[in-house]
């Protein structure tokens, strides 16, 4: 069913009828949902601190108008609590930024989806998980409900459904729900502060990216190794510059998530957020002659082969040019979270130069402290 062929939703139903009705009307992507019950939706609107009929603009690809109440209805289906609403709304506000190109992110052939990263004081306030199973919700209601609310709103309001119009070729498990929180005990400043956002009540960053690709530090000498941090970063750089991902071919932005123990080791060996970004930018590179090939396997470095999306600083005539995978060191986004056990890293390639760029919004003061300010 397309978004323009909508069967009316009966506004009064028996609660037991909801599951089948939701499937019949295409109101879910396949997972069961809670009914968008009036009382629950009203509570979620109240939790937003905004008026229910306040417009949040249109959602792509359908271009239908979303109000706070519409988003709240989807948040109700996702199982959100009223205190989750400011996070959901901040995520939508960030995704509406033109640089995010939400229409493209939703409908592209590429397997990316907006990852929501909550950082700062909101993480503890909302009881978000930052430990084991980080990318699958960590057992916390907030992580999955927030991620799910975003998916359902794009599904129901935006009409972002497979084939018509979403052309994603292989899909992305994060399209079911894709929300993480940064751990509170990072050795560096919180993620949003590193992006220049002052957010005493916490912040939300959206970044369209692929599913996490895990780097387990196999094969390193861990005892009395003063070079361990740098060697680990070499492993990270290898995965960031794999052929076939959009960053390697078009640059853009990328994200790396370090577990707390991974980050602590780096910090103990003198690495800062900035020095890591710079190091990864210098080392996560791929030889041009390996990126572009002619039919006979030789490097394609003639003028006709040029990528016009790369900056002029890339010498596209030399097969030995080492091409960075992001535009700048600052475009490598570093987040600390996950189980504080085995040191690991997760690399999240992006949609390259085409959109979904990291966008951060500060959260308002919680209503319990006097309401949004």
């Amino acid at each position, binding site marked *: 069913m397309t978004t323009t062929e909508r069967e009316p939703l009966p506004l009064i139903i028996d*609660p037991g009828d909801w599951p089948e009705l939701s499937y019949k009307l295409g109101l879910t992507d396949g997972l069961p949902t809670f009914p*968008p019950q*009036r*009382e629950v939706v009203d509570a979620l609107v109240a939790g937003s601190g905004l008026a229910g009929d306040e417009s949040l603009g249109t959602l792509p690809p*359908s271009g239908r108008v979303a109000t706070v109440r519409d988003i709240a*209805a989807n948040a109700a289906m996702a199982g959100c609590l009223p205190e989750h609403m400011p996070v959901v709304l901040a995520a939508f506000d960030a995704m509406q930024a033109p640089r995010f190109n939400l229409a*493209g992110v939703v409908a*592209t052939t590429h397997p990316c989806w907006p990852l929501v990263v909550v950082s700062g004081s909101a993480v503890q306030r909302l009881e978000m998980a930052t430990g084991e199973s980080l990318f699958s919700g960590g057992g916390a209601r907030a992580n999955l409900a927030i991620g799910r609310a975003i998916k359902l709103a794009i599904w*129901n309001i935006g009409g972002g459904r497979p084939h018509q119009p979403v052309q994603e070729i292989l899909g992305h498990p994060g399209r079911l729900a894709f929300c993480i929180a940064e751990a509170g005990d990072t050795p560096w400043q919180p993620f949003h502060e590193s992006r220049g956002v002052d957010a005493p009540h916490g912040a939300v960053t959206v970044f369209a990216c692929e599913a996490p690709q895990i780097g387990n530090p196999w094969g390193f000498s861990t005892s009395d190794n003063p070079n361990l941090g740098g060697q680990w970063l070499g492993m990270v750089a290898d995965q960031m510059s794999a052929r076939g991902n959009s960053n390697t071919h078009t640059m853009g932005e990328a994200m790396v998530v370090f577990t707390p123990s991974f980050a602590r080791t780096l910090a103990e060996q003198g690495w800062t957020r900035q020095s890591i970004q710079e190091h990864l930018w210098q080392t996560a590179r791929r030889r041009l002659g390996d990126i572009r090939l002619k039919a006979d396997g030789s490097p394609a470095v003639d003028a006709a082969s040029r990528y016009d999306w790369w900056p002029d600083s890339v010498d596209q005539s030399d097969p030995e040019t080492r091409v960075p995978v992001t535009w700048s060191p600052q475009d490598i986004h570093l987040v600390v979270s996950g189980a504080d056990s085995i040191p690991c890293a997760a690399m999240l390639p992006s*949609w390259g130069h085409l959109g979904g760029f990291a966008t951060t919004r500060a959260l308002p003061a919680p209503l319990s402290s006097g309401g949004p300010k």
Partner: protein
Amino acid sequence: MELVDPRGREAEVDRRLAPRRGTKEPKRIGFLSNEGEHLTGPHFPGYTRVLEDVLSERFAHLTFHREIKPVLSRPAEPDMIAQFLEYDGVINGLAK
């Protein structure tokens, strides 16, 4: 149980068709390509040149204008779209 429809509402936008030219002979054709030229495989700018040749043979009076979107994944910028309002016909596409 009372429900709230989660599907939002249609935007109130003016989606009228562009003015038709009636029987007036078209003079200007615009090609809007979603992407640039590729080294390998088909690309729409190349296809538009073929179309231009064919149309020119049949309708010698036609003039053509060609634009390529700066980023294929984004809608064309408003000033680019405004340019095409001056044309009698616009052909947009992506070759695959």
